[in-house]
């Protein structure tokens, strides 16, 4: 049967709500007619009868005299026989469903009513709010990419450098690689969950560790800045997380576009506080969360065990901590465990992969030039880490944080592309992570004096012209543009998110509004600030765009030329590791210092 809906505002002026519902009804294929405001009730009833409408939707925004007005309308409708064939709904700011029911309307819609709810009433079906609950699914945003080179000269140079690395690593190992092998061969996640750990693993593992983990396994001593969570805390946590998970709903920040995936970092030091932060991030729309571990963890050979809380930034990687965090995640939440910079790089990938991480992070160049690990050591460890990332089907980003010490973008990008090419050859799925940052190069060179758009756009254009690969600017976007003012900080993050979206990138990492505050831990509300801001920026942009100035193209070309120059030098040197020590991918003057952690620990097999 054809359904015709008559819409009539019982107000002198207000009819916006009905106009919105009218559009929803028409999109559902229903015939509608909207009467002008202040049409007399008698006239509304006459039109409904004469033109054989099936449904009448009335609205009332003004509160005064509403009960009397509606009661009179119902009387008139009854007297005219309208109720026999026409169902009548009433909605608006002044309406409460109880009042509508009391007066005899077929339905009453109060403030907050959705268009879908009104459409369901007209179509005579029960409104099911479940249908409007957002359903999120994990997505592998690397899947559409083919990793082919648009710039073949660059592809050929990268091939040469990758072959250097593969050949150099061929007969080498390190304590990190050996621990990763042990973890891979003898440690099983399901057995761990059943508290049936492999005794052979526990016997061999401490031998490959530094003193602190050794003391933990052999003498039960824990790191001085950590403590074991108590039995009482663990029991209460279980009740807490069960209750929270029961009422969890996830939110989507993307408006019309599917991308970018939004990542939030956590790493308060405590797995319980982390989980509190994660549940907030998920609720306010983050698609993925990144595990941030303490800096001393990256300089220590081996992982600790147990349920450890830490009094400073960064949550200690232990199987217990990672497993607890993983189990707290919503099914749709992507999880990244960073492995990129330290002495536990390959083992982090194995452990995270076994527990269930979706992504990891590896960059030999950044880790050895700006994060303190010896280049030779990290080249061996990074190589195996990439192989494990491929084995566990974990795409990984290659962050170019060496830009933050002053290394020019083109040099950091050369290093990133070397890692990406090596990863492709080893069967992994790398993600390019250029910084969207007001880096020292920008501060000194003045490229961002006018705007933050052109140089960031140039980076994306340059990378896209070189290789067909996913791009995930970070980390976080807008780094060094944010101040301690939470309005400015949220705004800057949101505008960078808007730019990243306009440039069509696949993912972004966003900071909290506390990004620039160094006096204490990041607070939960400050995470919500930026998630809300980013949501609003997506709503603002929709499918529209941002137009960079001509500078973007000029800088794109300069970046490409710069990368090519660096790759030529590294390829000509014939030794990737020596290139790192010699500053081809970042000099000491630029703030890149080859790290010392793990020096002289690489062994030939």
């Amino acid at each position: 049967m054809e359904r015709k809906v008559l819409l009539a505002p019982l107000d002198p002026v207000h009819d916006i709500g009905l106009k919105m519902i009218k559009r929803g009804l028409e999109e559902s294929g229903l015939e509608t007619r909207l009467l002008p405001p202040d049409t007399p009730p008698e006239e509304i009833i006459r039109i409904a009868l004469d033109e054989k409408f099936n449904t009448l939707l009335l609205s009332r925004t003004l509160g005064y005299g509403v009960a009397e007005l509606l009661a009179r309308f119902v009387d008139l409708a009854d007297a005219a026989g309208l109720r026999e064939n026409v169902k009548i709904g009433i909605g608006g700011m002044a309406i409460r469903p109880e009042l509508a029911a009391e007066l005899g309307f077929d339905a009453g819609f109060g403030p907050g009513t959705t268009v879908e709810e009104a459409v369901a009433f007209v179509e005579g079906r029960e409104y099911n709010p479940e249908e409007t609950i957002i359903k999120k699914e994990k997505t592998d945003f690397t899947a559409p990419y083919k990793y082919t080179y648009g710039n073949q000269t660059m592809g050929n140079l990268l091939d040469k450098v990758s072959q250097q690395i593969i050949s150099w690593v061929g007969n080498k190992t390190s304590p990190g690689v050996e621990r990763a092998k042990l973890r891979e061969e003898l440690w099983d996640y399901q057995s761990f969950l059943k508290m049936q750990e492999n005794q052979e693993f526990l016997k061999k593992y401490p031998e490959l560790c530094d003193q602190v983990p050794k003391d933990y396994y052999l003498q039960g001593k824990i790191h001085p800045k950590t403590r074991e969570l108590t039995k009482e805390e663990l029991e209460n946590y279980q009740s807490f997380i069960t209750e929270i998970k029961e009422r969890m709903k996830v939110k989507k920040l993307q408006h019309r576009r599917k991308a970018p995936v939004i990542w939030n970092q956590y790493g308060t030091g405590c797995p319980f506080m982390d989980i509190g932060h994660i549940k907030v991030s998920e609720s306010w729309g983050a698609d993925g969360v990144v595990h941030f571990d303490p800096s001393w963890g990256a300089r220590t050979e081996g992982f600790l065990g147990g349920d450890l809380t830490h009094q400073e930034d960064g949550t200690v990687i232990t199987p217990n901590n990672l497993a607890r965090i993983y189990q707290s995640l919503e099914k749709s939440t992507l999880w990244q465990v960073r492995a990129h910079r330290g002495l536990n790089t390959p083992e982090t990938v194995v452990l995270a992969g076994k527990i269930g991480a979706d992504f990891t992070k590896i960059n030999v160049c950044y880790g050895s030039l700006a994060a303190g690990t010896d280049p030779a050591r990290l080249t061996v460890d990074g190589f195996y880490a990439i192989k494990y990332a491929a084995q566990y089907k974990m795409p990984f980003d290659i962050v170019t944080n060496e830009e933050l010490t002053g290394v020019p973008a083109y040099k950091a990008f050369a290093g990133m592309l070397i890692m990406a090419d090596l990863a492709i050859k080893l069967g992994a799925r790398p993600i390019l992570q250029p910084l969207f940052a007001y880096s020292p190069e920008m501060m000194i060179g003045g490229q961002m004096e006018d705007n933050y758009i052109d140089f960031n756009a140039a980076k994306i254009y340059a990378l896209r012209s070189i290789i067909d690969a996913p791009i995930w600017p970070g980390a976080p976007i807008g780094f060094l543009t944010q101040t301690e003012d939470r309005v400015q900080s949220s705004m800057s993050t949101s505008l960078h998110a808007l730019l990243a979206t306009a440039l069509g990138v696949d993912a972004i990492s966003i900071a909290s509004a506390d990004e620039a505050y160094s006096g204490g831990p990041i607070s939960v509300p400050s995470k919500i600030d930026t998630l809300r801001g980013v949501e609003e920026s997506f709503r603002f942009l929709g499918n529209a765009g941002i137009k960079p100035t001509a500078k973007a193209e000029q800088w794109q070309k300069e970046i490409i030329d710069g990368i090519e120059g660096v790759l030529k030098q590294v390829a000509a040197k014939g030794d990737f590791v020596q290139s790192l020590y010699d500053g081809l991918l970042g000099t000491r003057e630029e703030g890149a210092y080859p790290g010392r952690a793990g020096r002289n620990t690489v062994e030939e097999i």
Partner: protein
Amino acid sequence: MAKLMEKVMDALDVETFIVCDSEDEGKGIALEMMKNLGFDDADLVFIEFIGPGARIRARAYLHRSGDKYGWLFSSREGGK
């Protein structure tokens, strides 16, 4: 009050405008105010002094990482 504060996940921020003559004075007032409100672990996240005074965001940490979190326990006690 103390029981209520257990429900705060980590920190409580106070945002306001303080009429003062300088940034230093505004900072002093803000921190003293937090102390008078009973917050021992307080800091000034942000201050911007212009014209008649200072826009501030002061923060008190109710739970820092590694603490025993009230909300972890009160959730169970006050729960279903």
